[in-house]
């Protein structure tokens, strides 16, 4: 298994394979940055604006990662999976939802907040956009844990017979955000011009820490 591509969104920057693709120094906050990134890098996708902030981050990272990859032409849709990890689950939109139900006198739960109150929804958004039908899972961990990701992705490939997996860290707690995604593939053809490295725990940490 090989890591064939990475995407990183952090500190108002979007990086692909460690190289800066987009940088917005003027963005005043996460929302401003994410909106400008979408307009700059992604094709029209009106559903984007309906997503919660976690899904927006996951969606953008996946779009950057999967650009020009044509995964569904290389592998059966059922063999493309996702494993994502984060620390704060869906706490950002959970708080928004709670605000709509805090008061008995003003009790109007918002359906559009409520539908995002699970971190797995970000996987759904990526699968819907890309027509991936493989297994997927979200793990909650206090810190980025490459060992667990490595173990789970290996299980995906060996037991669930995945051929490709989008895996990494998508964290948004309302104050801080970071997205780091890797494309892991089993079926890389000889001659592909890619900056590849082995899917191994030390390599994952190096890529995540941009070393």
């Amino acid at each position, binding site marked *: 298994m090989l890591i064939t591509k990475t995407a990183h969104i952090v500190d108002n920057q979007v990086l692909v394979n460690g190289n800066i693709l987009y940088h917005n120094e003027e963005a005043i906050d996460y929302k401003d940055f994410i*909106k400008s990134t979408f307009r700059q890098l992604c094709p029209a996708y*009106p559903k984007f*604006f*309906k997503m919660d902030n976690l899904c927006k981050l996951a969606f953008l990272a996946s779009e950057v990662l999967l650009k020009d990859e044509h995964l569904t032409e290389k592998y059966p849709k059922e063999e493309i999976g996702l494993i994502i990890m984060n620390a704060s689950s869906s706490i950002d939109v959970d708080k928004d939802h709670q605000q709509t139900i805090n008061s008995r006198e003003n009790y*109007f*739960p*918002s*359906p*559009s907040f409520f*539908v995002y109150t699970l971190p797995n929804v970000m996987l759904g958004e990526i699968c819907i956009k890309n027509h991936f039908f493989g297994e997927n899972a979200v793990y909650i961990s206090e810190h980025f844990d490459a060992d667990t990701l490595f173990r789970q992705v290996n299980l995906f490939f060996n037991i669930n017979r995945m051929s490709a997996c989008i895996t990494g860290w998508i964290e948004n707690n309302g104050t801080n955000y970071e997205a780091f995604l890797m494309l892991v593939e089993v079926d890389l053809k000889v001659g592909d011009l890619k900056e590849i490295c082995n899917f191994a725990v030390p390599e994952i940490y190096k890529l995540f820490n941009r070393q």
Partner: protein
Amino acid sequence: MEEQELIEKLRKEIIQQLNLEELKPEDIDPDAALFGEGLGLDSIDALEIIVLLEKNYGIKIEDPKEGKKIFSSIRTLAKYIMDHQKAQ
């Protein structure tokens, strides 16, 4: 409130409530279909409009069949609100 005035208000409220950030109020044709081809809203949006009606206008839609007719367009929505307010 006159119908046109209410239509303007609803356009703004719907853009805000449904996160239609790419749209300006004047982009929404008051006679265009809200669901399907027109604005292309989905079932979650329908729920949001139901919440909006209850929260901002004190109107509860009890019968889902009724919703289909009321939510045809911004204009039908405005007419329903005005009829409801007159009846009160």
